[in-house]
């Protein structure tokens, strides 16, 4: 490698110049000229020129490419290799992952108190909201992980079940006045039911076709919610969805309220903390059930299905039913999360259930490492937490989000945590994790 180093700089420069030229072609029009409805032209379009921005963009590409060439791609010992030694690989991280779960768990349980003591009850509210949001996505990720990670069924319309759950609660509360705790199981059952209805015809499709049909179903449900004005309120959505009570005790000021009953001073943060613990408990139940199922015949059948469907059929496994259970179960957890979302927001509209949501949840599952529960947690914290952290960047953050999806995937196609733990061992605890390179991703 070092033999070529004489030309390193010139090669890199040439390459970077080509990169700059391509960037010029890309950006000169879309950045350099902005078509705008100018006020003076009577509603006609005019062009606003911004060559400075183009120059900056091209310079960034040129410099970035040059630096990457010099220090990473063409260099004898790339910087990343040196950096790579500082960051342990996932293989060596695997034993740590065993301890990560309890650490995360303890942290998650004491989080509200940590925040309260650090920021006070007023200041900690936004962080608690963020924690609730992240935990919701963790739960959704875990739910989808059953479908995509374990059973290997690519579902791009998962948000449909989230929507079914949210609307089930909102409508049941609106029309029948049911409380959250009655609606929660109903919403889950309804979502599972929809999972079976939608799943039944499509589950014999394979791979990308399944993905695109689930996407279509997701969109159909959203469009129906949007246009069925009499029932769902259409684009206006449903507002005034009842907040959850502490098993019957409302979070009100005054007599009989939560604060009053427990002899605390009234604070609006109580409800937020309660909501946080509700979603945390729901997420943990999802995780517990999933981990349990992995060790049961049905879970093993899911994973076998992901590995080789034909072999499964030759061993007497009813693949349709097995896929349906995965789909229905994933949908059920999505439905639970949806009804939590409805009660937390107090307002829902079809806006919240676009394709982007499905894409984000799928991205969390894939980036975390298919089938890895802890991977989902890490990916959700990074993606959603990071996303909210950059709220100041306003419109740029979706752009960054899209680019990050590309970059992380190119960097780690198998996701962040990519070892599979056997569901049962003969030799007791000491069995090693299975490298992701051996694990199939499923065909359906």
């Amino acid at each position, binding site marked *: 490698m070092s033999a070529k180093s004489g030309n390193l700089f010139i090669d890199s420069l040439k390459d970077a110049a080509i990169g700059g030229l391509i960037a010029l072609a*890309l950006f000169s029009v*879309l950045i350099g000229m902005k078509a705008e409805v100018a006020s003076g032209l009577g509603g006609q379009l005019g062009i606003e020129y911004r060559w400075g921005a183009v120059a900056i963009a091209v310079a960034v590409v040129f410099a970035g490419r040059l630096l990457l060439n010099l220090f990473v791609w063409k260099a004898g010992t790339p910087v990343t290799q040196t950096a790579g030694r500082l960051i342990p690989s996932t293989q060596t991280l695997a034993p740590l992952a065993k301890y990560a779960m309890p650490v995360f768990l303890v942290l998650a349980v004491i989080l509200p108190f940590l925040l309260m003591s650090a920021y006070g009850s007023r200041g900690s509210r936004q962080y608690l909201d963020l924690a609730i949001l992240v935990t919701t996505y963790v739960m959704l990720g875990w739910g989808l992980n059953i479908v995509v990670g374990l059973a290997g069924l690519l579902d791009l319309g998962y948000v449909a079940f989230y929507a079914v759950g949210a609307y089930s609660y909102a409508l049941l509360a609106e029309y029948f006045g049911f409380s959250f705790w009655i609606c929660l199981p109903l919403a889950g059952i309804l979502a599972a039911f929809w999972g079976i209805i939608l799943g039944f*015809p499509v589950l014999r499709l394979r791979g990308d076709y399944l993905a695109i049909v689930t996407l*279509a179903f997701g*969109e159909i449900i959203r469009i129906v919610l949007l246009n069925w004005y009499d029932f769902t309120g259409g684009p206006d959505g449903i507002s005034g969805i009842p907040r959850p009570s502490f098993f019957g005790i409302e979070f009100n000021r005054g007599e009989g309220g939560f604060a009053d009953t427990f002899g605390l001073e009234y604070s609006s943060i109580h409800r937020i903390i309660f909501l946080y613990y509700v979603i945390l408990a729901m997420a943990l139940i999802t995780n517990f059930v999933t981990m349990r199922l992995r060790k049961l015949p049905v879970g093993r059948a899911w994973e076998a299905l992901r590995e080789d469907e034909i072999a499964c059929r030759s061993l007497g496994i009813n693949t349709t039913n097995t896929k349906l259970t995965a789909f229905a179960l994933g949908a059920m957890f999505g439905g639970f999360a949806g009804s939590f979302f409805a009660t937390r927001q107090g307002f829902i509209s079809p806006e919240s259930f676009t*394709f982007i949501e499905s894409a984000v949840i799928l991205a969390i599952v894939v980036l975390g490492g298919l089938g890895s529960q802890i991977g989902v947690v890490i990916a959700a914290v990074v993606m959603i937490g990071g996303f909210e952290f950059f709220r100041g960047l306003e*419109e740029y953050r979706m752009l960054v989000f899209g680019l990050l*999806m*590309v970059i992380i995937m*190119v960097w780690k196609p198998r996701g962040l945590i990519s070892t599979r733990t056997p569901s049962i061992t003969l030799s007791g605890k000491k069995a090693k994790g299975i490298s992701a390179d051996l694990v199939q991703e499923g065909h359906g």
Partner: protein
Amino acid sequence: MEYFLQQLINGVTLGSIYGLIAIGYTMVYGIIGMINFAHGDIFMVGAFIALIFIVTFGITASLPIALLILALIAVLIVSMALTAVWGWTVERIAYRPLRGSFRLAPLITAIGASIALQNFVQISQGARNKPLQPLIPGGFTLTEGGPNGEGFIVQLSYSQILIIVVTTALMIGFTLLISKTSLGRAQRACEQDRKMASLLGINVDRTISLTFVMGAALASVAGLMFLLYYGVIDFYIGFLAGVKAFTAAVLGGIGSLPGAMLGGLLIGLIETFWSGYFSVEYKDVAAFSILAIVLIFMPEGLLGKPEVEKV
């Protein structure tokens, strides 16, 4: 009857636009077996580039007709070239590094690229939609209404004729390109067996890149046509048009070029007739339902080859 005729004309126009986009999906799926999720957004980028040039050059309906046509051809060529660079770049950055890797990874990068492109255009060009004065006004009136305003006037506008003529010409040229040239042969070889093709001296990476470039160029033509037809675009048009064009590709039989055109035509017709006779609100539901129905009952599409399960 008149109403039907008008819907038919509109449907064919819309269908030829979908057909052009569908070719990009079908070619890419044929050669690397992935849904290029960002293709709809490449179409959107093409429409924006065309719009910007039209405004920059000051092309309006007031130009003499010969000059107008020349100018539009110039815009078409330039925006095809620039959109092709976008198509190439997306492939180079988001898909090529993942070639031969795990199947879900390029799907995620494709979704990421789609989100990034949409938001890039939203930031650089603004979120508001861009209206364009009609460039080619007028047309033939096929049936006159009655003297007292009864009856239905059927119009075939010049821009619709232009759209149908240009797409037909491009599709013919393109089919010839794929069936007769060595590039087309290389492409079909890569579709069959990429490893073997590379052993026989075909530059697989370049062939795939060219596939993306061609798909993007056609999408940019579709973008210009969309702009001429509807007269308004925004950064979000790519998603729906993309999904519908993909439906068209699947309906026609993925991997088959004539199938993509046929599928595009059918989807265009179904959508217009659905909006014309049933409800406009649910026209997208119609398209999505057809997608689901086709995939479930006829996954090989109209002109595709059935996939045989090897045991």
